[in-house]
């Protein structure tokens, strides 16, 4: 790998795709935390599937949160390029991040009621965790329930037309659909309640090893700015949501009610264990061909 | 009581854009005749056949064939540009019998008796676009003669035929005369026309009004050579040329 000289005062580019998962970056940008660190930051909007591509081809220096399958999958194909930092997820003490939506008049109120029912997941990562959860309560997840993937755009139609009995989705869809049609949320944050608490869904952001080697200082500054953001989220839930409205397509009636993910700037040992079990479950579910150790990826 | 006309045209008018081809044209022909139509290029002969065939609609006026409307009869027709009217996706023989097959689901095999073996072979094996012009025209004539009850329309049907095949075609047409069938023959060859027709209508440039020559051409000669050298024919020839030049 070639070493390029450090260029000072250069613009730091951060890729995002206008989702709440990039909130810490939006807040740092909005509240001037990047500026305070003397960073000149540009937020670059890209397609959600292009985040890692733009990062590894050098078009940007950082990306916002990307879920484990992509990060780990890329690491397996091309080891030692990506560098995750921070973590994002859900916790029992935090907001509602995911849940099952059922029709308001549905008799389903708890996990046990799902026996014999069909559930659509708008996110393939949901299915392996759901299987583990159902196992915990004594179901055979391959027999007692039908779990299927479905595109985000049609889960509401599927629920309304009775094609499925429930849909499992995450924020902000959870709030949006609940807002739009008469539904109730069942078993919010099942992963923290039945698996591990907190349940870490993804890193907070990514950069590359190459970039760190040449720009360690900048990376530190970015991390500092994001730490400020996390504190802000903790202390200013209302303003956080106003900023979310500004940076995403979401309208205020949604952001006001929506749950915000739990973030942590540096994982500890317990977190690594929890994260690793998630990755392992992805392997078990055959979403990933094989796993990788997350600690080496995070280690500096 | 129905009238006895094979063909009756009343007050027919037809124009293209600003060019009037027929203007209040009237004609009545007894049943069962062969009628020759003779006239200069562009005087409306093909248009007349298209009107009889129901391919074009008159702007005004009435056409009756055996007292029926054009839409009620199913004419046989040889078009002036015959090669465009054979269907290239069917063998020539299928083309010849297609109209009959569609309309009556029969096949008048006896028609083939008039063909030589080599002609039969040709029509059986080749698609129309593989035939020579004259071969295409002969097959078009055959097609028009099969299965048609009231009306056969022949637009310059011998233009590509050699002497022998032309005679063959003449025989075919004469054999297919019937008491209630009108045959309309357009040709620039006056001898052919006189030879085949009972009557020749001579037209003279557009628009066609009610002034036209209506020549009786029934005769008693044994063959075409006799006819050619007869004063009967030279009379008709003179009358026709004079009328057209007038």
């Amino acid at each position, binding site marked *: 790998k070639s070493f390029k000289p450090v260029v000072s005062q250069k613009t730091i580019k951060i890729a995002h795709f206008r989702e709440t998962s990039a909130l810490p970056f939006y807040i740092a940008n909005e509240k001037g935390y990047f500026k305070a660190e003397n960073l000149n930051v540009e937020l670059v909007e890209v397609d959600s599937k292009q985040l890692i591509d733009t990062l590894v081809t050098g078009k940007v220096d950082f990306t916002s949160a990307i879920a484990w399958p992509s990060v780990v*999958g890329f690491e397996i194909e091309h080891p030692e390029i990506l560098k995750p930092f921070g973590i994002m997820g859900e916790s029992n003490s935090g907001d509602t991040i995911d849940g099952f939506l059922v029709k308001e008049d549905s008799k389903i109120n708890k996990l046990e009621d799902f026996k014999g029912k069909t559930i659509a997941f708008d996110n393939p990562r949901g299915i392996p965790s759901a299987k583990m959860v159902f196992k915990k309560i004594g179901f055979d997840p391959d027999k007692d329930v039908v779990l299927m993937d479905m595109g985000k755009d*049609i889960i509401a*139609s599927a629920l309304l037309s009775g094609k499925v009995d429930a849909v499992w989705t995450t924020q902000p869809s959870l709030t949006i659909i609940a807002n739009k049609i008469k539904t109730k949320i069942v078993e919010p944050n099942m992963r923290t309640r039945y698996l591990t608490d907190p349940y870490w869904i993804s890193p907070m952001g990514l950069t590359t090893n190459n970039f760190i080697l040449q720009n360690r200082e900048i990376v530190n500054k970015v991390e500092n700015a994001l730490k400020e953001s996390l504190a802000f989220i903790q202390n200013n839930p209302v303003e956080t949501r106003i900023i979310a409205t500004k940076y995403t397509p979401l309208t205020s009636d949604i952001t006001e009610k929506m749950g915000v993910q739990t973030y942590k700037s540096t994982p500890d040992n317990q977190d690594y264990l929890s994260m690793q079990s998630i990755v392992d479950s992805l392997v078990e579910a055959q979403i990933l061909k094989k796993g990788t150790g997350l600690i080496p990826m995070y280690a500096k | 009581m129905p009238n006895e006309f094979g063909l009756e045209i009343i007050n027919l008018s037809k124009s293209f854009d600003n060019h009037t081809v027929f203007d209040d044209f009237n004609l009545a022909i007894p049943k069962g005749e062969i009628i020759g139509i003779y006239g200069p290029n562009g005087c409306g002969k093909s248009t007349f056949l298209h009107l009889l065939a129901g391919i074009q609609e008159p702007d005004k006026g009435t056409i009756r064939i055996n007292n029926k409307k054009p839409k009620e009869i199913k004419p046989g027709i040889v*078009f002036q540009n015959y090669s465009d009217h054979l269907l290239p*996706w069917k063998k020539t023989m299928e083309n010849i019998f*297609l109209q009959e097959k569609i309309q009556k689901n029969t096949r008048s095999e006896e028609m083939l008796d008039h063909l030589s073996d080599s002609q039969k072979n040709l029509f059986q094996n080749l698609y129309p676009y593989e035939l020579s012009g004259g071969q295409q025209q002969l097959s078009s004539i055959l097609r028009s003669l099969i299965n048609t009850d009231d009306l056969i329309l022949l637009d310059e049907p011998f233009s590509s035929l050699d002497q022998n095949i032309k005679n063959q075609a003449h025989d075919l047409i004469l054999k297919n005369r019937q008491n209630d069938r009108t045959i309309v023959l357009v040709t620039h060859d006056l001898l052919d026309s006189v030879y085949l027709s009972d009557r020749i209508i001579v037209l003279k440039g557009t628009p066609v009004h009610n002034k036209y020559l209506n020549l009786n051409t029934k005769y008693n000669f044994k063959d075409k050579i006799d006819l050619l050298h007869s004063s009967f024919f030279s009379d008709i020839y003179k009358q026709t040329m004079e009328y057209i030049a007038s």
Partner: protein
Amino acid sequence: MKRSKILYAIGPIAILAGWYFFAYYPTNFNILIPKPVQVMLSFKNFPQILMKSTIATLYTWSTGTLLGIILGILIGFICGYYQNLFKIIEIPLDFFRSIPSITLLPIVALFLGSGLTAKFFIVTFVTFLYVFIHTTYGIKYSRTSKQNLALAWRLNPWQNFREIIFYSSLPSIFAGIRTAITLGLIATISSEMTILGTAGLGKKIIDNMVIYNTTEMYEIIIIIGLIGYATNKLIVILENNVIHWKGH
């Protein structure tokens, strides 16, 4: 003949050469391009890994497309003949034709659910549209001389269709079919990406995209491309055999 085979080889060879080049030449993106050899080797596992998905895709696609083609020809003929009917459906067709199916999907899903029915509906609809348009074009531009024959013979609409219009329109219909089978394949795979369905190559694409398994992604791209190419080739061969009267 030998020379012409060489010509056919130039295109694929050029693409392969380009692929090799970009997979090995040190650009900033060459790591995102899998090595050709790897992809070729991955075909070894085709029976276990992709066979089922390929069959699922082929099934949806062929059934939906076939139905769409038949409907396109039939309704195209009816509309070509009954201009009034055409007028009734013309505006809705030209309207919905332009809207990306991904946009219509949520609406379709409301009525047809989000299962196989919706998938078939979309594939059939797409293929129908293009065969339909090209059938009406074939009819619109079929030769006056042949239609004069139909008029003189007093053919009824069905006879006219069966004996004349159908054949006259065949070149145009075949052009429509070639467009339609390709778009049908695209519609199949796109709807497998979003609509529910256990298997299908579209689903595999999404799965592999998510985990950056570019090797299998490229394998799937090659499979789809080969399916598309082979079908097109078959149609052309069929076409050349059927339309022996080309140009006449």
